[in-house]
């Protein structure tokens, strides 16, 4: 098999091949304790401080299932329209790795907690917004492994390292692995569908409240399986598995790249090697990981240390009743309530501001003002400081109060920006900032009148135009007054005073 140096153009590749994708997403649950022991399941901490005989896999230690993790798994399954198993078991997946304490992973194999589901994702195409159905094969429970740190050597990989350190704090944190059936028929939209699916899944997980679902922290990790088959053949080709892709954008790029790469190999008469591949964010390419033939043998067998999980139908129905509104339904309901255009809605969702806008509105702001502040003013600041919108030190209630101050005429938009500065700098509530910075607009006729008189005096030409009936020219005078009053004048009242004085 020859390795092609040239990739085949994506569109050209699709002229010859149909892509099929399978996505495997790992979700780290936010339970208080680990999957099989009572250790805290929190991110970080001094290495190996959140461990016990069980998550260290010490001889004699035994697992006991975290009921909360089972509950989260069932809720995820229900949200993905899955069947929930009446009876299922854990299995041992046997393989060796230094950061895996027992050298087997306690997982689920042929008896997952949830199976046979589906979810719809939306992709913007030349025909507008199109819906693609993604079938879910299974969602199963398993434990995370520890983390290796390879010290020395140039690459940070085990090869060439002087020594390796292992941190078992993460070992045993509960994971849910969600596996799709092959997604076929998406053709040129396949990469976008992959991205939309992972984004949709994240939204769902966040709505369920079962995980922080932060891709940058590895709470949500996606593996992209992709294969090509000759157009119209209806078959599935040999797949590659690109591991741990950690952003929505990268999911799309990795899928696109694999289409082009595999097409080049197939065109040159080569064949695809079934293997895992690594995604490189910086160069936008995948490289070969380890070969993974079907013969790889995990020697699965039912975990004898754990009794089967048999969720009662009553419990499952109780959990079904607590499911949040599905994100898509919620979005269309809110869009209608708020009267947003499709574009406005997409931007709001895209910025991760949906919940913030919703809360701001519930605190009394109008939908448009809530959207405006979060998506312009605050999005810019979040961007500048490299933080999440939700992580800014300001609450939806603060934003609603600032808009109320504008509506009441106490401040104007320009002053509002200074109020945002103050609140974000920790100077207190919007009202406190207005008071301490002296930002309230001046609407006292005496002070404004004097400023208007001075402006008329300083701009006789403009005054003459207004007298001649060109009221639009008043803007220049308003600007002058504003400048003098350092922006704190009530612009409406200033206009009235100008017209009053120049019409007599």
């Amino acid at each position, binding site marked *: 098999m020859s390795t092609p140096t040239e990739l085949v153009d994506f569109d050209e590749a699709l002229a010859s091949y149909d892509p099929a994708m399978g996505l495997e997403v790992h979700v780290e649950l936010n339970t208080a304790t680990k999957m099989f022991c009572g250790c805290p399941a929190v991110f970080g901490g001094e290495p190996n401080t959140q461990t016990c005989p069980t998550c260290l896999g010490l001889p004699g230690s035994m697992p006991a299932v975290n009921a909360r993790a089972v509950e989260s798994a069932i809720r995820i399954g229900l949200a993905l329209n899955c069947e929930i198993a009446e009876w299922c078991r854990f299995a041992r997946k046997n393989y060796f790795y*230094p950061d895996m304490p027992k050298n087997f992973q306690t997982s689920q194999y042929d008896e997952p907690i949830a199976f046979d589901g589906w979810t719809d994702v939306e992709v913007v195409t030349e025909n507008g917004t199109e819906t693609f159905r993604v079938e879910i094969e299974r969602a199963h429970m398993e434990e995370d492994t520890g983390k290796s740190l390879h010290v020395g050597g140039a690459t940070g990989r085990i090869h060439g390292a002087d020594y390796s350190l292992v941190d078992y704090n993460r070992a045993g944190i509960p994971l849910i692995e969600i596996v799709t059936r092959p997604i076929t028929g998406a053709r040129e939209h396949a990469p976008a569908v992959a991205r939309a699916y992972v984004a949709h899944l994240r939204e769902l997980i966040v709505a369920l409240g079962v995980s922080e679902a932060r891709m940058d922290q590895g709470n949500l990790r996606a593996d992209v399986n992709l294969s090509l088959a000759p157009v119209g053949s209806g078959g599935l080709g040999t797949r590659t598995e690109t591991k741990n892709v950690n952003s929505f954008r990268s999911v799309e790029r990795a899928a696109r790249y694999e289409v082009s790469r595999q097409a080049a190999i197939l065109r040159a008469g080569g064949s695809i090697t079934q293997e895992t591949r690594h995604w490189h964010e910086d160069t936008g390419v995948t490289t070969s990981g380890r070969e993974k033939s079907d013969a790889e043998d995990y020697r699965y067998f039912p975990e004898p240390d754990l009794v089967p999980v048999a969720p009662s139908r009553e419990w499952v129905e109780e959990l079904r009743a607590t499911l949040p509104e599905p994100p898509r339904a919620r979005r269309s309901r809110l869009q209608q309530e708020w009267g947003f255009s499709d574009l406005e809605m997409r931007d709001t969702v895209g910025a991760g501001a949906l919940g913030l806008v919703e809360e701001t509105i519930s605190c009394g702001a109008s939908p448009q003002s809530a959207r405006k502040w979060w998506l312009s003013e605050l999005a810019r600041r979040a961007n500048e400081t490299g933080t999440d919108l939700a992580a800014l030190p300001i609450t939806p209630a603060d934003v609603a109060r600032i808009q109320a101050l504008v509506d009441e005429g106490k401040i104007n938009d320009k002053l509002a920006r200074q109020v945002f500065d103050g609140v974000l700098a920790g100077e207190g509530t919007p009202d406190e900032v207005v008071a301490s910075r002296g930002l309230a607009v001046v609407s006292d006729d005496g002070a404004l009148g004097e400023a208007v008189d001075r402006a008329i005096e300083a701009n006789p030409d403009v005054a003459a135009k207004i007298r001649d009936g060109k009221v639009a020219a008043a803007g220049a005078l308003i600007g002058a007054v504003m400048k003098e009053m350092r922006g704190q004048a009530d612009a409406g009242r200033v206009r009235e005073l100008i017209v009053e004085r120049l019409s007599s």
Partner: protein
Amino acid sequence: MTTPLIERSAAALAQALASGETTSVELTEAFLRRIAEVDGAVHAFLHVDAEGALAAARASDERRAAGTPASALDGVPVAVKDVLATEGLPTTCGSKILEGWRPPYDATVVARLKAAGLPILGKTNMDEFAMGSSTEHSAYGPTHNPWDLDRIPGGSGGGSAAAVAAFEAPLAIGTDTGGSIRQPGAVTGTVGVKPTYGGVSRYGLVAMANSLDQAGPVTRTVLDAALLHEIIGGHDPLDSTSIDQPLPAVVDAAHAGAGVDLAGLRVGIVSELGGEGYQPGVQQRFDEAVELLVKAGAEVVQVSCPSFVHALAAYYLVMPSEASSNLARFDAMRYGLRVLPEGVDSPSAEDVMRATRDAGFGDEVKRRIILGTYALSSGYYDAYYGSAQQVRTLISRDFEAAFEQADVLVSPTSPTTAFRLGEKLDDPLAMYLNDVATIPANLAGVPGISVPAGLAEEDDLPVGFQVLAPATADDRLYRVGAALEALLEQQWGGPLLSADKLALETEEHA
């Protein structure tokens, strides 16, 4: 003339402590002295913790003085098989790969012994990772049968059984995966009980085969076993397979059984466990014991358990399969032995693992890892592990049917008396046959007891009488066991075991 302390039952020792006749320190010292005298010949212990045991004994004496004993057996020492994790005390499982490892935690059984105030004398010898029927597979050398030092003490719990038989400890804890409490009990003339699966927590028991392993008592009397069973048994949230219901009243049953009234009891003799292949002297003692039960009022029925003929085969698929997975954690990365391969400049993790496992595991362990890995591998799973699990279901059904006809089932515990050290070492299959009568209980999870039934005529070595009961009906074992023990002692004029019969301190054996 009073019986020397070390020869008394644990129940009698508890009485002596309660009456002030002796103290726990005195008692513990007596057993430590006995260990010092005879263990060179017996080699029942891998590690003796004199300091720890005496500290626990002093604490026990203080509780007695304050009138607040922690349990009926508070102050009576115990020995623990080296397969149970003991905080700060070496735990090797009889393997080089764990040489020097001191666990940072106690197994639940050990924690309960400590909470009940029993000083722990030390850790007893065993076949490496509990794989064997003779304790010859210990990486630290074999244990010798106190009845005849040239013979095996049974396995894998030969250390615990020999310690009790040699009067080095009044009580011991063993574990039974295919018979490792009952078979050593039979060949050393002691009482061994495998409780119902899940009746005693497995937390901290280094697993050989998780779905079969069960810790239980090794003692010289049935009542002692019940007293110990009561301390270690019961639900443990750390072991999700442990049974979440009250323990049966085993001590009451042992007391009731000693009244030897078995009227109305139906005793089933399992046709498949006896007769052909069983040593004549073993079969003879068994038949005589059944006669005694009949005299006490029991009704005897013959029952057939046709699937039992497949038990051994099923066991030797399930056990190594689970063991192969359990032993994967011994990889030289975090604890125990680490061997660097020779002639390799910068060895990889795999190189170190390979060299360590090669040096750290004995032949029997390697044999079973290979068997288990093969049986679980894809393409063979259904044929081997899957079929073995189906056989387990059939065996369970055989038990259910048999228990409809009988309240308890009985058989010889082991087909033969103790064989000679080395005799079967090169013939693993012959060795495996020793557990043929004990294995079905492990596959089905039902409880069993082995009670001494006398000495075989041809070799004057102990014979064991096995009683099996339905799951969670452990109390029946104690009722029948105590009755048989009482009847036999009337006949013998005392217990089967006595220190003067053993002649352990002689020069030629020391």
